[in-house]
């Protein structure tokens, strides 16, 4: 599969198996996966559903940039796939799947955590929480001007 197809913003439901197959290769003995799922509450508020939107072109480029950073820190990592869903997502639906493959498992855990943290702090994707009695954009870490 061509590299750019491993960093994806999609409106379609995400299949963990499909994301796993994006990184699979005979030389990789480990594929470590994070699956982010819509939770039913935030603090005391009951979540009805979430609405995600993305600056898709920039988000996919930003995911490829994260892949590059991982490669510099953990040269032994093989392939990485990042798939984020947008649109309306109900409780229990999958919003994000990250898969990290390598010949051996050891570096995959740290690299996976790094990728998930970076996705949340730097990829231009927004989510609105819709509760029974209101709604709000969730503002994560702020962009830092250098």
């Amino acid at each position, binding site marked *: 599969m061509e590299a750019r197809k491993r960093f994806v913003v999609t409106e379609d439901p995400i299949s963990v198996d499909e994301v796993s197959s994006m990184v699979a290769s005979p030389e990789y003995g480990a594929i470590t996966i994070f699956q982010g799922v819509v939770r039913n509450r935030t603090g005391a508020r009951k979540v009805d559903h979430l609405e995600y939107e993305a*600056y898709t072109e920039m988000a996919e480029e930003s995911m490829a940039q994260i892949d590059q950073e991982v490669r510099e820190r953990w040269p032994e990592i093989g392939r990485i796939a990042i798939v984020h869903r947008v649109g309306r997502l109900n409780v229990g639906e999958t919003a994000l799947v990250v898969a990290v493959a390598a010949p051996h498992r050891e570096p995959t855990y740290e690299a996976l955590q790094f990728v998930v943290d970076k996705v949340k702090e730097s990829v231009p994707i927004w989510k609105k929480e819709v509760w029974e009695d209101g709604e709000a954009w969730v503002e994560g870490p702020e962009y830092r001007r250098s």
Partner: protein
Amino acid sequence: MKVTVRWFAKFREHTGKNGESVEIPEGASVEELVERLEGIYPNLNVREESVGVAVNRKYVGRAYRLNDGDEVAFIPPVGGG
């Protein structure tokens, strides 16, 4: 010259648009575009410290000089995952 401004999340809801073409003087900076936008949308907080600016999908500073045809996005704090 003209640039294309893209709106997302709270800015998209505030402006009621996904994007628009904005006429600005030749060689204008992001800061000058912000001033122009504040004239169109007096209550739009594009000036906030927490808002990033991307030109052609790369983050830039407020002093960055724009070119005709640039795509400028104002990026509110992200919240994916």
